[in-house]
């Protein structure tokens, strides 16, 4: 079945993707694959995954989000999750899901700032880039 693709935008060295619709599992998995391919094609240093418009993060989507951060990290791209709604943060903790190793920021602006700082730090530590 054809699934609606989530647009992935590029700003300088960073990719920005914002989930705006309720994702069913296949669309979410497709999105993960699209993101990793775009990272590879664009050699992006960072990725912002914006969840401002997401009103439900269940254990599946939480796992997928963690996977994206880990996989992108393996490729050398830093991921920052932005815009988690308060009710999403509450349900994630109550559900018992830990987004370990995932950097989060309040909104897109703070996310970009965090990403810049992290990438700069990598540069000064002599990462190949």
């Amino acid at each position, binding site marked *: 079945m054809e699934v609606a693709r989530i647009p992935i935008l590029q700003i300088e060295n960073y990719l920005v993707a914002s989930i705006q619709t309720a994702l069913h599992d296949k669309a979410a998995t497709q999105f993960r694959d699209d993101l990793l391919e775009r990272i590879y094609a664009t050699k992006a240093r960072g990725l912002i995954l914006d969840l401002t418009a997401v009103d439900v993060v269940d*254990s599946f989507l939480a796992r997928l989000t963690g996977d994206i951060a880990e996989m992108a990290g393996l490729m050398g791209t830093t991921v920052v999750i932005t815009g988690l709604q308060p009710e999403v943060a509450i349900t994630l903790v109550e559900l018992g899901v830990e987004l370990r190793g995932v950097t989060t920021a309040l909104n897109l602006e703070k996310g970009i700032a965090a990403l810049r700082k992290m990438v700069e730090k990598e540069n000064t530590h002599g990462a190949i880039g």
Partner: protein
Amino acid sequence: MAPSAEERCIPVKTDLDIVSARVEGRNLARELGFGTIDQARIATAISELARNIVLYAPEGKVTIRAVVSDDGGTGIEVVCEDNGPGIANVELVMQDGYSTSSGLGMGLPGTKRLMDEFEIKTKSSVGTRVTVRKWLK
């Protein structure tokens, strides 16, 4: 506890139905006067339960209805039923982190934490029925 006329039944077979079920649940929760945090809890619980149907059973259904408690309180009840293999060891699946699939193993214990009441009935090769309720405070 008296049943109410308001009842929505969503057949669940694929991952698309998981989204339909939780949208229906959130809509009814909102109509009943639940706040956004409880709406998210209810929608997330439905998502977890409906995913269990898709993962482990050929098909099933989610029934969402408004209920009234003995003392007149308003609540929402979600019943998730399937004709799957049943759960061999309920105690085990109620433990955090236990999973037989690619999930996080947070589905059932997590759902219990999100809701006020949680009941599970399961029989080998007959199926599983999970009933959860949330009360308006």
